[in-house]
């Protein structure tokens, strides 16, 4: 017999029943797969239909960073320490991997902002927006990686068996980026300051991560580099890609475990904050 579903809305927070909330979260996630895919396809199609250079835009930014640093290092303005990899390979892998993390970090706030209109008027599983962002990040990363691997082959680097683990490295970059992005989204939707401050801050963090130059060997800066949770994520992904054994595997696994846990928290926070954010959007 047809038993209609019952929907109830009360002022109480659903945190008071965490288990039910988790079940609901995963149910909504499953329900929004179709929507997430559809929205991602829409955005990707629209993006490429309006641009001649299309795919190229995905790696122009990391490419320009690479060229800048090659120039700085080559002219001796800044002297970068010895790297095990040829320096151009070091920068290009670093910047592309870093840009994947940054893309993942920007996605939740960007996507939520872009969907304001829909959010304020329609009730659909909000996870669809996050999924759509995730799919787009993965799509763009795929393109960047294809280019990156071609570039490596040209530069004479043959990835070893570690390449099989490399997708894990990418997933962990996306995971860490998404967690940070999700955590700042609720506040970022209220105050635009967040959207401006975070990229600046991350720019700073980039220089504390072995992205464009290698880890300092000693001093308090070296310690800072080693504590920085981005370090193992970038290094491990790069090692897997270029055929070196990863040095920071344990720390890498630890950071990912914490990130997974934070993901659940950030995701719940996003859901719980949404009605309050929508209250403050125009209808």
């Amino acid at each position: 017999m047809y038993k209609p579903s019952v929907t109830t809305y009360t002022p109480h927070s659903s945190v008071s029943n965490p288990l039910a909330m988790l079940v609901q979260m995963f149910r909504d996630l499953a329900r929004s797969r179709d929507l997430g895919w559809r929205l991602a396809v829409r955005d990707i199609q629209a993006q490429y239909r309006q641009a001649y250079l299309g795919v190229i835009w995905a790696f122009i930014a990391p490419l320009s960073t690479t060229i800048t640093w090659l120039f700085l290092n080559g002219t001796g303005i800044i002297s970068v320490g010895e790297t095990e990899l040829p320096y151009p390979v070091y920068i290009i892998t670093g910047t592309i991997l870093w840009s994947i993390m940054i893309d993942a970090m920007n996605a939740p706030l960007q996507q939520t902002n872009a969907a304001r209109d829909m959010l304020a008027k329609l009730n659909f599983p909000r996870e669809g927006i996050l999924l759509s962002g995730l799919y787009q990040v993965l799509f763009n990363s795929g393109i960047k990686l294809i280019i990156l691997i071609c570039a490596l082959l040209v530069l004479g680097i043959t990835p070893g068996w570690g390449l099989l683990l490399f997708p894990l490295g990418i997933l962990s970059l996306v995971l860490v980026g998404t967690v940070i992005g999700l955590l700042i989204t609720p506040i970022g939707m209220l105050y635009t300051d967040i959207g401006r401050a975070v990229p600046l801050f991350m720019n700073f963090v980039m220089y504390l991560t072995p992205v464009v130059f290698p880890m300092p060997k000693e001093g308090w800066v070296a310690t800072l580099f080693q504590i920085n949770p981005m370090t193992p994520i970038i290094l491990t992904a790069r090692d897997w890609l270029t055929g070196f054994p990863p040095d920071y595997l344990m720390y890498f696994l630890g950071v990912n475990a914490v990130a997974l846990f934070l993901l659940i928290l950030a995701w719940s926070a996003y859901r719980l904050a949404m009605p309050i954010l929508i209250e403050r959007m125009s209808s």
Partner: protein
Amino acid sequence: MTDSLIQVEGLSKKFCRSLKRSLWYGLHDIGSELRGGQRNNTNELRAEEFWSVKDISFEVNRGDCLALIGPNGAGKSTLLRMLNGLIKPDQGQITMRGRINALIALGAGFNPVLTGKENVYVNGSVLGFTKKEIDEKYETIVEFSELRDFMDTPVRNYSSGMNVRLGFAVAAQMEPDVLLLDEVLAVGDAGFRAKCFNTIMDIMQHAAVIFVSHSMPQIARVASKVLVMEHGRCILQTSDVGKAMETYYSTFTQCEAQQQISGNGKSTPRWIRLEDLSGNQINKVAFAAPFNVSCGLAIDPGIKEYRVQLDIRSREQQLVLQFSSEMDGVAFNKTGDVVVKVGINAMRLSPGQYVMNLFVADAQTHEVLLAFRECLSFEVTGNIVGYAPVSQSGDWTLEPAR
């Protein structure tokens, strides 16, 4: 069997007037939401807050339609957004059974660069259809929207009316148990509007409907119950639609006619008033009761012959009735100060507020000597509900069938 699909009990919601504070409270609310506590002592208003919706309770059964009416800012849309689950109530509870759909934002998620067809799929997903469902309904959608030739055109080349058509065509495929409607019927051209209306009427028969509109004729046609809101509170809940409209109109400050005079100046108004049959000034007319309109005019001596016309508009600025001396075959030729009087036997306008316009035109050149807009406002009283603005009386007979 009554099949109660929507139950709302003691629903309240507060809003904040100042943006800065509202954002700050938002931060607090997110905090307490995460801690799992109830939001800020929910009975108290913080500085600069007010009740946008306060203590609303109602119930809607399957097949019933509850209309929400009230002046702008009465809290109707807030209430609808709570029902739609977009924002959380501060007090009270909403319980709904079955599939809930809202016809509020047509064409949500449309991307202007993509073609109509692609956008149908996007919009469908947002409304909760699976790809398979949209595949099945695609033909119907195209048929309904009457945009077959444009399905491969980017939506940004659509006119706004076409956009709405396509959006409605997708939304019309929903089969909800609970339907929330917000002023969507005012879209598209007349032909399409009628089509939309009929579709919604079809859906309504099997659903519990909540309907927000400012169009009283629409409400009179579809609503089985009306809830009149003002300043967030329910001031009347009734199934007597006529009474509800009267209450709704009473929420406006008595409409002072916004008198406006134009024309070529060869006629100027001295005064105008409604009179009962003994000549006393009135501003209320009972339904179908006789009365006179009397008007003092100054007419330029150069005018040979002139005609007078009165027309009547509803509060929604809809032209509902006219009295024309020309149609009655009457023209006047006396100039100087005159008093024009027209006796009206039985004006069968639906009860409500109306305004009157007066026009004087040269009968030969048709030049407008005087256009006196909103020269007076008046009320028609009565206990009947008119679904149309005017009810004409007819001779009713009954014969046995042969």
